């Protein structure tokens, strides 16, 4: 780890003032950043600890929920309002990492955690455009079983590893952002970028911009939502494919639906195409399969990950079927 200075932010203004410095980084639970600093993949000069900022979960007048960015993953997953009104979010969080890591990890840090592509982690031995733009991508012709099937580019085929973000993308969450001269919010689906020819630029955040909170809209639909994660072992593994979905059926037809996929792309993947294909259709397995097929028409397999296309299709059908079963 290269030397750095450490400061604990006392409030949002203090955090963005310090975080605006070049080579400053915000520090949440450190479960991703400290690991990457030890590997010298991340090399900040200044760490601004933001775990002392808001970790409140508050009800909005409009029925939504505001969640401070310093809230721990555990505190969010176990909160009553989240478990009862946004069950997919609780399920997604407890499907990720281990209890110890979820106790440390913050909401802000979970959003901005970096890919687990093994070549990205191999600073000494592998070429990676995300670490060193223009250096090439060893995953492209390497071992790419865990990599992307949607939205990838010739520069980078890595996936975003977060489970929580998949549920947030499905739930239409908004991200509250703060910088010295601006306060704004961004839909979670517009926070992360596809790799394009700049895989090193992972989000639409300005340098030094701080995530202060996420906001969940009031949503009766979300009450019937769930999250399913398919992985190589039953626990403590990253997703091969995951699906977050919410469904409302009226008189046998799909009245409202939201679907997002994890483990398939450089960002949490909102399945807009499948959603549009399902609206008004009979809530049957045949419709679910057709919608999944439509979403995955754009999928492109790499050498080792072709199985993900079929796995994503089947998982989408199974999750929608489960929700439709509950809805009748």
């Amino acid at each position, binding site marked *: *780890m290269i*030397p*750095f*200075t*450490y400061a*604990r932010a006392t409030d949002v203004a203090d955090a963005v003032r310090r975080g605006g410095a070049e080579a400053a980084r915000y*520090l949440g*639970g*450190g*479960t991703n950043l*400290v*690991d990457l600093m*030890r590997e010298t993949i991340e090399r900040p000069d200044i*760490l601004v*600890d933001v*775990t002392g900022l808001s970790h409140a979960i508050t009800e909005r007048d409009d029925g939504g929920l505001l969640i401070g960015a310093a809230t721990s993953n*555990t505190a969010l*997953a*176990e909160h009553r309002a989240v*478990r*009862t009104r946004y*069950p997919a979010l*609780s*399920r997604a969080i*407890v*499907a990720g*990492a*281990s*209890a*110890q*890591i979820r*106790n*440390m990890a913050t909401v802000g840090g979970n959003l901005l955690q970096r890919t687990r592509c093994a070549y990205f982690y191999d600073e000494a031995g592998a070429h990676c455009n995300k670490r060193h733009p223009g250096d090439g991508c060893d995953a492209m012709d390497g071992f790419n079983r865990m990599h992307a099937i949607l939205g990838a580019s010739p520069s980078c085929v890595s996936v975003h590893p977060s489970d929580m973000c998949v549920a947030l993308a499905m739930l239409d969450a908004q991200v509250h952002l703060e910088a010295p001269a601006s306060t704004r919010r961004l839909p979670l689906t517009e926070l992360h970028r596809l790799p394009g020819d700049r895989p090193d630029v992972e989000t639409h955040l300005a340098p030094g911009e701080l995530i202060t909170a996420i906001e969940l809209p009031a949503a009766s639909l979300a009450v019937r939502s769930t999250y399913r994660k398919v992985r190589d072992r*039953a*626990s*403590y593994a990253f997703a091969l494919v995951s699906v977050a979905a919410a469904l409302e059926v009226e008189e046998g037809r799909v009245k409202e639906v939201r679907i997002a996929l994890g483990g398939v792309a450089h960002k949490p993947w909102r399945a807009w195409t499948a959603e549009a294909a399902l609206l008004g259709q009979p809530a049957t397995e045949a419709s679910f399969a057709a919608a999944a097929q439509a979403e995955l028409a754009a999928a492109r397999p790499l050498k080792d990950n072709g199985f993900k296309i079929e796995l994503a299709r089947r998982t989408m059908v199974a999750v929608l079927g489960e929700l439709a079963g509950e809805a009748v």
Partner: protein
Amino acid sequence: MTISVNGVEAMLPSDPRVSLLDLLREQLGLSGTKKGCDQGACGACTVLVDGERILSCLALAVQYDGRSVTTIEGLGTAECPHPLQSAFIAHDGFQCGYCTPGQICSAMGMIEEVRRGTPSHVTSDITAEVIPFSRDEVRERMSGNLCRCGAHNGIVDAIATLLPEAAE
């Protein structure tokens, strides 16, 4: 800048790169907490901070200013072991013992999480106020603690003695 470790105040390191794990082992001589992977993958370094289980290898010590840490040394002694330590002995919850301090600290944190109703990946009704308890729940909740000797059955048996609902 101080940190309380097993009830004793200690100075935090001046170098912010020092992990809580290295502070415990190298500067305070508390070698009960183990370093397995140093990257968050094995759970051997698990300690309790204000009662919550965390991984000390991924924790920068400076971040824990003013907090209260409990390690295996703070739970019990050879003469006066914690009931969970005795249960690990009675149920063969270890072989080489390398993962054991982490397993025991993790189990202490887990029991508290279950008491306050934290759901897990295998909790079927995520809205339930009280978690119906089972061996599957123990296994899932302890999945962040690996044991290369494969003593998992004994570990679950030992933990179950503190959670009578899980015994069946």
